[in-house]
């Protein structure tokens, strides 16, 4: 009993939070500076659980920070730099106003600047931490490096971003780390695997900027400031891990190849080296010569049965990866001028291909169109006047699709003027029982090595088109298709692993396998019979869900079929 009366809002959550304005005043910074500091230090606003308590009874929406975070900010040495900068600006403005040019000069010479190195180290205590957060840095770097130098941000920032992104791309090429590419309507998504981390980044198409007005450029520039520092240090470490020279240097061999007379046409001498680096057409110099490429195999520790299985799976994966890394090895590409050069050069070089372009397009082309050893020429126009016999003229999508499919796809679908197959997103992973577009099925079949059957089918289809078969037959086929679908549905409903390919039944006599299957099915039926009532109910429910899903998928497939048929009919009409 007794004691002092407790006052409201003097303990609990009300004292754990601080409003933005109060935090600003505590740090003695202007709002833009405060915002910048928070971004650099990685301190973000917080939504309290009980707003009314924190807000001292008011329900007005406010921005809150944790008080401890702000206390932590008080120790930051950069805060004083911000104040110095403020004073510098004031003095400079004063000197300008008084037209004291010598004072202006002197002040400009002593412009205060700060480094973010210690912040990077503090926020990312280990290298892996930094690598996990590199997605944002890459996106911002690539975005800013494509900006026009029109004063939306500092030219120096743009240059730095360009340098860092080029370094990154060169690293990805050198380490063959690229895994997926997706051309979207927004930009190009890349995914690379660096030191076991999957890193995704988005690169805008060239010259596609309209500057939106509702974006705060100051905030974005601050993020970029931090991320350029981070990216630089990460690049350094990655180059070190591959024994590459860090500010990257071209291989001496490559450099001699690249020596040309007309270098001055593209860039000033001071810039031509960076330009050549950004051309991505030649390999980089190493600290230790690259001859003794280690062919280290994974250490094998044979263990129990299960582990062995896992190990095998892993080995298989590894092998697949190795083959994927070399899909373009031995191929020589030539990029026509209407094709996005940088993206294609990057992708091709990531998978071991050689690439060149016309001299007038960019610096750093290694061979000419007339080179007889070129195997693929990438063209994106309806036709080409002068064609060489011994090379494929393909559309750029082939390269990307090959990368995503992890094999060299047949070239026929991507010839000049051919209607391209859809460019599927490699980032979608279908679960069991999802609808899979037929194009993907085809690619999956190709991956499994079932080349002939597919081609046969295609040929058949073509024949069908040409021969103009009777409608009855088509009807028959449809019926057969339906039957097939039903069968599939039944199969799926029994929870068997899917046979993903949808092919009209060519009966293959596989007796032992079939017997085994039947046996399994029998066992399953028995197991179902033995179930308890409750379990049975659950089982039925699950099965029903699966069936419904299958039904939906079948519906989609049928729809697709109808769509394709309609397209076919249209084409036929057009031909007639």
């Amino acid at each position, binding site marked *: 009993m007794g004691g002092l009366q407790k006052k409201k809002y003097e303990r609990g959550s009300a004292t754990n939070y601080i409003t933005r304005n109060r935090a600003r005043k505590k740090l003695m910074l202007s709002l833009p500076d405060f*915002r910048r500091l928070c*971004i650099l230090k990685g301190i973000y*606003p*917080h*939504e309290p659980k009980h707003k009314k308590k924190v807000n001292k009874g008011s329900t007005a*929406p*406010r921005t809150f920070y944790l008080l*401890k975070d702000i206390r*932590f900010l008080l120790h930051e040495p950069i805060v004083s730099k911000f104040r110095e900068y403020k004073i510098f600006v004031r003095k400079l403005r004063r000197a300008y106003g008084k037209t004291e040019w010598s004072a202006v000069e002197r002040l400009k*010479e002593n*412009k*205060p*600047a*700060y480094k973010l*190195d210690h912040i*990077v*180290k503090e926020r990312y205590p280990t290298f892996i931490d930094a690598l996990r957060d590199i*997605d*944002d840095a890459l996106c911002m770097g690539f*975005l800013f490096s494509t900006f026009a130098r029109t004063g939306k941000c*500092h030219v*120096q*920032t743009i240059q*730095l971003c*360009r340098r860092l992104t080029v370094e990154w791309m060169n690293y990805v090429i050198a380490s063959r780390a690229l895994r997926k590419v997706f051309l*979207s*309507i*927004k*930009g190009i*998504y890349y995914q690379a695997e660096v030191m076991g981390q999957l890193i*995704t980044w988005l690169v*805008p198409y060239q010259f596609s*900027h*309209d500057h*939106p007005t*509702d*974006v705060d450029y100051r*905030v*974005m520039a601050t993020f970029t400031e931090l991320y*350029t*520092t981070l990216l630089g*240090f990460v690049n*350094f*470490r990655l180059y070190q891990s591959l024994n590459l020279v*860090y500010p990257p240097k071209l291989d001496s061999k490559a450099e001699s190849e690249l020596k040309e007379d007309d270098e001055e046409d593209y860039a000033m001498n001071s810039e031509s080296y960076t330009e050549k680096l950004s051309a991505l057409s030649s390999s980089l110099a190493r600290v230790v010569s690259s001859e003794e490429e280690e062919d280290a195999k994974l250490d094998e520790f044979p263990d129990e049965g299960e582990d062995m299985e896992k190990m095998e799976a892993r080995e298989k994966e590894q092998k697949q990866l190795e083959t994927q890394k070399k899909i373009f090895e031995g191929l020589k590409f030539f990029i026509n001028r209407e094709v*996005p050069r940088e993206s294609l050069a990057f992708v091709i070089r990531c998978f071991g291909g050689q690439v060149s372009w016309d001299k007038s397009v960019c610096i750093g082309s290694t061979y000419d169109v007339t080179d007889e050893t070129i195997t693929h020429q990438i063209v*994106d126009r309806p036709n080409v006047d002068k064609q060489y016999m011994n090379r494929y003229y393909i559309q750029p999508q082939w390269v990307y699709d090959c990368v995503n499919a992890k094999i060299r796809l047949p070239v026929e679908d991507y010839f000049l003027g051919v*209607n*391209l197959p*859809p*460019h*599927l*997103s490699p*980032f*979608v992973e279908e679960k069991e029982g999802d*609808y899979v*577009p037929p194009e993907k099925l085809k690619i999956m079949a190709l991956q499994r090595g079932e080349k002939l059957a597919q081609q046969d089918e295609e040929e058949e289809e073509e024949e069908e088109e040409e021969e103009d078969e009777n409608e009855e037959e088509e009807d028959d086929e449809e019926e057969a298709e339906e039957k097939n679908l039903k069968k599939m549905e039944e199969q799926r409903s029994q929870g068997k692993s899917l046979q993903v390919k949808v092919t009209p039944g060519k009966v293959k006599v596989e007796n032992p396998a079939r017997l085994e299957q039947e046996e399994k099915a029998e066992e399953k039926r028995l197991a179902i019979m033995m179930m308890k009532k409750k379990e049975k109910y659950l089982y039925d429910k699950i099965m029903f869900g699966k069936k419904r899903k299958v039904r939906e998928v079948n519906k989609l497939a049928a*729809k*697709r079929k109808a*769509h394709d048929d309609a397209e076919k009919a249209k084409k036929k009409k057009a031909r007639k």
Partner: protein
Amino acid sequence: MAARRRLKRVAASQSGFLSFKSPSDPTASVGSRRKRVNKNKKKNWNKYSDVNDVDEFLEDVRHQERTTGGLLSEKADDSLFFLDLGQPEKPQPQAETPQADEGRKRKGKASRPLRIDLILKPDSLVPPPKDILAYQQPNAKKLRRIAEKAERLAAKGVVPRKQKRLLNRRPIDRTVKKAVAEANNNPDRDYYDIWGQEPKVSADPWYLQQTGKKLVKRPAKLNEKPSVLPAVEVIAPGGSYNPDFFSHQALLQEAHQVEVQKKKQEDKLERQLAINKKDKATEETNLREQVEGLVEEENDDEELAPSKEDDEAALAAIAVTQKKSEKQIKKEKAEKFKEQQRLTSRRQTERQQQLFQLRSIKASIRQQEEKTKSKQMQRRIKQEAQKAQPRRLGKLKFQAPDLDVQLSDELAGSLRQLKPEGSILKDRFKSFQKRNLIEPRERAKFKRKLKVKYVEKRAFREIT
């Protein structure tokens, strides 16, 4: 001094130099009475001695010095006289011809010195007196002695202290500029292995801590990300530049759904803001308003009657509350006691009966537990879902950006013809907001402080 001495000497040698005391004119003094003056006073000397002749003489000497540079009597004869041989005949015409030429050219002006020069030319031949101070040095003697001493020491090989200190001073390298703080976005900046080596701590940690120079350790909680969303969300497969038909349709469907939702909300708002038809004025309501109070109401009497009845009832209620008799009180008490007993017995029997209901009770408990468990589960799921949601961080709510979609007829057939959709800059900005890294904000609106006054210009007004 020398000049004065010479003057004296000259004066003495001159004939007719009068002594100091002699009066200027002996004849005048004879005529008038000689005035007696005491000569023991300097004042009288000045007053009564005649110095005109001396002055004249001195003036003459000065004149001679001025015009000839010395006394004529001391000059040699050669310098004073010359032998007149008449005018030389021949060289004159020769000299004249070039002069005439020049004179014709320059009209004879150049040969003559300018008048102003003549005026300014010193007309005295006495040389100006020498300014001694111009070449005299103060402290000359002392300085000379110091210099002599220094020379002696230098000969011995002793370096003075001042020079020694100068020699010992560390040379300043003027060519190296003061290390200018490098800007953070310098494109040529260099990087190093930041995670490789631990930075050396040079000073005592206690000292660093006390002087506030030690970096404060970052709390580990700050390294947690404020959202579980990935940094880069890959667009749906329908967003491919050359999409599969169905995935494209799915994306369109999604975009359509969003639009429909927006439209719904707009419509709702419109509906809520619409004027109620009943509130609108019609002819009838207008008329009624105009006649209000003019027409008599008929049912006044009916309303008055029931109010009377109410009053009576209230009075009756007051009358009823009379004091209870003792008997009545006892009776009520007993009844109350009985009722309580009945209730307790009933409770007891119920409790006994519960023993036989154990199974059903257990079942109900189980049911309750299940219910709470499922509720907990749901709450947890909700919380997980909330983690991916953008939080309310400021005045404004996060507004999801429009889905980037290309309609079927906008799709390009090839990469060359592709028209990129949306802005990546905006996408990144929204992503930061979605991941709670920054609070959503609106661009500050421009507010005019002073009113703008519009004035029609006269030229314009004349036309209209």
